[in-house]
């Protein structure tokens, strides 16, 4: 079971406007209070999944221990947590996996990191085709 998602080209459909191309996919984030569709960046360089604090509050995620996280842009504070991520595969099948995550203050991107997420999928980035392909790995 696999599914390919194209990178979005630009902000305007027919223009090359220097919008950074990135592997973003539709996901459903599920918390204790809400479930919502989001667009999430797949980041093979990130250890963990990151969720903006305001999104975590909407979802009703548990705010665990406060932590400091080092990023290329500096240190930011956050909280340990976990979130259920739903990924739409072929034939409209939804694969749900629970992953550890960091809830981050002053952060506005949903980032899918390796822990938990990359264990559940074989993920292939094809920059030439500007697409990312996910193949769900069945648990043994």
């Amino acid at each position, binding site marked *: 079971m696999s599914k390919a998602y*194209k990178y*979005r080209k630009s*902000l*305007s*459909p027919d223009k090359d*406007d*220097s*919008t*950074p191309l*990135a592997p973003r996919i*539709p996901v*459903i984030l599920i918390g204790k209070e809400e*479930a*919502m*569709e*989001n*667009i999430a*960046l797949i*980041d093979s*360089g*990130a250890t963990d999944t*990151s969720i*903006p604090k*305001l*999104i975590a*509050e*909407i979802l009703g995620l548990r705010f665990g221990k406060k932590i400091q996280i080092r*990023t*290329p*842009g500096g240190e930011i504070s956050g909280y340990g947590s976990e979130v259920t991520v739903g990924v*739409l595969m072929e034939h*409209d099948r*939804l694969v749900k996996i629970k992953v550890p995550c960091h809830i981050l203050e002053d952060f*506005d*991107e949903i*980032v899918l990191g390796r822990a938990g997420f990359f264990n559940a999928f074989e993920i292939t980035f094809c920059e030439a085709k500007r697409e990312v392909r996910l193949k769900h790995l069945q648990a043994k």
Partner: protein
Amino acid sequence: MRNVIKDYNAYMNLDLSAFEGLWIAIFNGQVVASGANPKKVYGEAMGASKNKMVMLAKVPERGVVEIL
């Protein structure tokens, strides 16, 4: 799940240049709310969708390279 695909296709194909750097909420293939605060955008969108699931997305900014 049909709605997720419809909203995702809207995210991929709509002209979002007016929302650069903002959060947007998409419902039934249309942008129904936008702004800098995702909580406010989500609340407004839930009113527009009558509490049905909406897609919340941050629109990238032109010329900004992301190093996360």
